[in-house]
């Protein structure tokens, strides 16, 4: 019952997310929707790690790698967008696959601290390696996305790309977790020692998830770069990951739709209330505190428990 409801709810939200801005047809709303999508994708990458009970603070760094890779490949190397987009996911995934076995030897707090440091290293490299990454000035004049020769210059067409990508990512995660991978991942989060004693190579699976999450983060970076046509290192720092984490907590980190819902609720705020950015920070913080204490399952948890209650009656 709850399952069917949440599926209908998810599909409806995604369709509404795409259609409403297209129908209103004002650039500002399309712009908001694109930002929501990009943030949601990054938040999904954080969600994947939370799913195995680990918090990675390097996700924005992976997003940055994807953004720079995609930007440089299309602008300077003449690689077509489709390939560059794929590589924007694959390169961070590969990097995560290489450092994963090292970082993943630790868990919990140590892992958080190591990924924090790793994320900072990535940003430092962007800042310092000026000949390649342009230092603090970043990279500009990034060509727009283009699919099969069709340039996605109009925001509405870019929104369609973002929405399709977000849907594909959510669907892939849903299918993967509904199957055998979900069984392993739940076991990893709940009792890794026992899972290992049943013959599951926990480290390999954790690295797989880490790599997958880096892939998704990289894709969000590519979207970000081609949408804004300008990137600079500070967009990929620690606080970007923290924001993605907040989206999870507020939306409901137990649910695949949680990060998306969190993005829907929060990502537009800084754009709508530009003059109130500082008050917003305080508000974010207070909301986060209250949610952690009063509503640890996030808003989606609240909605689902309501739906569940109605289903039982």
């Amino acid at each position: 019952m709850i399952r069917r409801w949440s599926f209908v709810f998810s599909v409806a939200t995604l369709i509404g997310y795409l259609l409403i801005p297209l129908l209103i047809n004002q650039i500002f709303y399309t712009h908001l929707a694109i930002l929501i999508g990009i943030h949601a994708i990054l938040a999904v990458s954080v969600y994947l790690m939370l799913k195995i009970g680990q918090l990675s603070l390097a996700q924005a760094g992976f997003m940055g790698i994807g953004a720079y890779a995609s930007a440089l490949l299309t602008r300077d190397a003449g690689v077509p967008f489709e390939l560059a987009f794929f590589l924007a996911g694959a390169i961070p995934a590969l990097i995560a696959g290489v450092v994963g076995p090292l970082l993943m030897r630790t868990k919990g707090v140590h892992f958080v601290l190591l990924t924090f440091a790793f994320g900072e290293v990535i940003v430092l490299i962007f800042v310092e390696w000026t000949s390649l990454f342009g230092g603090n000035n970043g990279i500009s004049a990034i060509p727009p996305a283009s699919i099969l020769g069709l340039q996605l210059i109009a925001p509405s067409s870019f929104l369609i790309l973002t929405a399709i990508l977000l849907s594909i990512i959510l669907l892939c995660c849903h299918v993967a977790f509904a199957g055998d991978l979900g069984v392993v991942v739940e076991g990893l989060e709940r009792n890794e020692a026992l899972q290992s004693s049943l013959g599951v190579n926990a480290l390999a699976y954790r690295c797989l998830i880490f790599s997958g999450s880096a892939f998704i983060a990289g894709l969000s970076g590519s979207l970000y770069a081609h949408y804004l046509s300008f990137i600079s290192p500070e967009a990929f720092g620690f606080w970007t990951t923290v924001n993605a984490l907040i989206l999870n907590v507020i939306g409901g980190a137990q649910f695949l739709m949680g990060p998306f819902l969190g993005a829907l609720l929060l990502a537009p705020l800084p754009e709508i209330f530009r003059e109130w950015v500082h008050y917003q920070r305080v508000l974010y913080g207070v909301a986060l505190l209250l949610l952690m204490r009063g509503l640890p399952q996030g808003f989606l948890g609240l909605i689902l428990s309501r739906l569940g209650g109605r289903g039982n009656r």
Partner: protein
Amino acid sequence: MTSAVSQLSVRDLLRSFGGIIAVNNISFDLAAGHITGLIGPNGAGKTTVFNLLAGSLVPDSGTVQFEGQPINGLSASTIARRGIARCFQSATVFRNVTVREHIVRAGYLKAIGRPVDLLRRRRLADHKKAARDRAEELLDFLDLRHAADRDAATLAYGHQKILGVGMALATQPRLLLADEPAAGLNPVETTEMTELLRRVRYDRGIDILLVEHDLRLVMKLCDRIIALNAGAVIADGPPDVVRNDEAFITAYLGADHAS
């Protein structure tokens, strides 16, 4: 695999934590076909020995051979796939999952031990089917059929521990490591557990290495006892011999009374 070949062979196993030497140059052989008890006072190093055998910890030095193959330094999952299972205190891993499904999953998880295995759908389907069949048989063996469709988390403590043994058995081990299987059980449940372990050994032919504080249970069940104290073996032999061993009495019972 004849009983003349030692099934598990431990040589000079050493492991320390910081300054504490938890396991100090231990050596022993387990021949196939026994229930062996590993006993000792609190902090003697029993759990550490288990962790070393099962691959949860890496020894500082020393070797472990299982069925003639070295296994020290291998990962826990590899050792599990080699045929050593371990039963845990609480085996209810999955949320909202029945007892039956817990046993089924325990039976096929090793078929997806590595991520690439997820791609081998046919092989996995075969393993799943075999695991289903085995689970039905195990439900009877464990006498858990009455609870088969209940959410495992709602089981009574005693039944959870039996489920723990069942999940270990579902992996089709040849050696079972049981760490305090009777801890926290009432006398009736203890008797059930004792019977179960005996049947594991004699009906299914699976060897057992058992850590247990309940000495009566150990003496009744085991046909060999290895006593540890402060990380070293202080007595080794049949229950009757160890029971009267002087070092054992002073170290184990003395320490036990003192604590």
